[in-house]
């Protein structure tokens, strides 16, 4: 394993410390229990948004704490959901009285730990669960689909509504709408290496890719021979469109997300392929996001998220945001 690391056990703590120092103008880092929160206290009457999850997906979620997005983020160990006391402490720290909305990715560890955190927190709170990964069959009898890159969009869009005075209920409703309007699928070319493991999570041939991969290096739909970008992108978009069924000329946001180890040039090439395919199918792209936002450590690969946008979504997407990883308008 080759990483910038001193001791495996200190990896997260040291990284969080560095994150805190590099962005001390907008956030602060609490350790034991660990959470990242805004530097400034949440203003009275503003609903607090708290997300979190296993580490290894940076900049998600700590990089999204700040004006117009999250109030706090709870990082677990690498790929392990955070513990309830983190959520409880974060909620107690940020809640200004208007209540807390937890944004949770649909993994059973996350669900259970956030549930317990919410039970332990005495203030008003509610949760939304993202589950945008169309690689996975949905079903009410199973855990259902995974929550992946669309979580970034949910956090941005609901973050804006909360900043502008939306109530806990309104924030939840909007978050669920964004989640329902979004579909994501990813592909991996290489594995990631969990620091504690010291070796790659999975083996993959020099000419293979994992189609429909999760963001923890979990296996996806199938193992395939690598294909030209346009074929990969076409297959991903087929799965997403099948699922979202956008209307003719419906406005969308196209989000090409890097898994961490793929260069920007390739992500933009994927974006180009996706634009061409979507345009040929009469889907209108009105907003874009390209970059590494919801990663799997150093994994090479990418996911594509398509979000159907109405005016409310667009307005909140465009609103100013100031976090470590996403910033515009201020």
């Amino acid at each position, binding site marked *: 394993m080759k990483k910038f690391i001193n001791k495996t056990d200190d990896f997260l703590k040291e990284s969080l410390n560095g994150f805190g120092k590099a962005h001390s103008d907008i956030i602060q880092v609490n350790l034991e229990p660990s959470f990242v929160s805004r530097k400034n206290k949440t203003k009275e009457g503003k609903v607090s948004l708290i997300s979190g999850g296993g580490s290894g997906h940076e900049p998600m979620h700590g990089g999204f704490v700040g004006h117009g997005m999250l109030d706090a983020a709870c990082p677990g160990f690498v790929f392990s959901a955070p513990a*309830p006391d983190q959520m409880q402490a974060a909620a107690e720290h940020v809640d200004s009285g208007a209540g807390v909305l937890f944004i949770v990715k649909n993994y059973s560890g996350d669900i259970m730990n956030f549930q317990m955190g919410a039970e332990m927190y005495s203030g008003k709170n509610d949760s939304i669960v993202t589950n945008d990964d169309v690689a*996975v069959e949905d079903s009410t009898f199973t855990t*259902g689909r995974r929550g992946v890159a669309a979580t970034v969009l949910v956090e941005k869009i609901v973050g804006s509504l909360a900043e502008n005075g939306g109530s806990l209920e309104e924030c939840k409703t909007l978050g669920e709408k964004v989640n329902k309007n979004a579909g994501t699928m990813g592909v991996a070319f290489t594995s990631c290496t969990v620091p504690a493991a010291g070796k790659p*999570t999975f083996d993959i041939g020099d000419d293979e890719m994992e189609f429909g991969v999760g963001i923890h290096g*979990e296996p996806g739909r199938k193992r395939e021979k690598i294909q030209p970008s346009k074929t990969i992108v076409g297959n991903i978009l087929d799965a997403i469109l099948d699922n979202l069924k956008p209307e003719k000329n419906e406005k969308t946001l196209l989000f090409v997300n890097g898994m961490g180890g793929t260069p920007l040039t390739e992500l933009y090439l994927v974006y180009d392929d996706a634009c061409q395919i979507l345009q040929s199918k009469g889907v209108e792209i009105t907003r874009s996001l390209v970059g590494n936002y919801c990663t799997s450590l150093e994994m090479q690969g990418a996911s594509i998220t398509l979000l159907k946008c109405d005016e409310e979504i667009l307005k909140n997407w465009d609103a100013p945001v100031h976090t470590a990883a996403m910033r515009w308008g201020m």
Partner: protein
Amino acid sequence: MKKETEFMSINFLISQAKNIQKVIDENASEIEALDQNIGDGDHIFNIQRGLKLVIELEGTIKDLPLAKALNTIAMKVLSGIGGSSGALFGTFFISMAKSPDLDKDVNFSKACEMIIDGVKAMKERGKADVGEKTMMDVLIPVSEKLSEIKNNNSEMKQGLNEVIKIAEDRMLSTKDMLATKGRASFLGERAKGHIDPGARSSQLIIDTICKSVINQ
């Protein structure tokens, strides 16, 4: 042979944790591989971290009343592990700590009751039943067996040998299941042919405790 009253003493708990740690470490690469096959690979580290944290509590809890000690363990497991296992095992210990009459002696029957209630709490937390390819495939049948032993006042040693057998069978039975809960559920058919990591670690834990009780 163990004195009835020594079940669930703090000494008992810590020494079991140490036994378990040894067994888990011996089987670490297998457990790691299982979660890499159908999950995200962290299960072994979660379990190892949890055991280490509990064992480190020895000094802190050794003179506490049992309920307090169990609660301290519960909070440590809950806050120190994370992931599905942290929530589930944390829930187990929270339930144990809440058991009534912990200031009285805990005999075998009471110990069974505590475990049965703990597993019930886990089942409620995770909403997974038998057949969903999780650790519950081991824990629920084991809990049912304990309840049978307790209710029938069966001979403990023989009962525990049956528990060992059930745990192993049920652990192996997860191999050919489709998963509907937990990370492996995202895999569909591809989960088949792999034992569930949580089922394997739970079975090892049960195996270790039972054998140690039997041999004392």
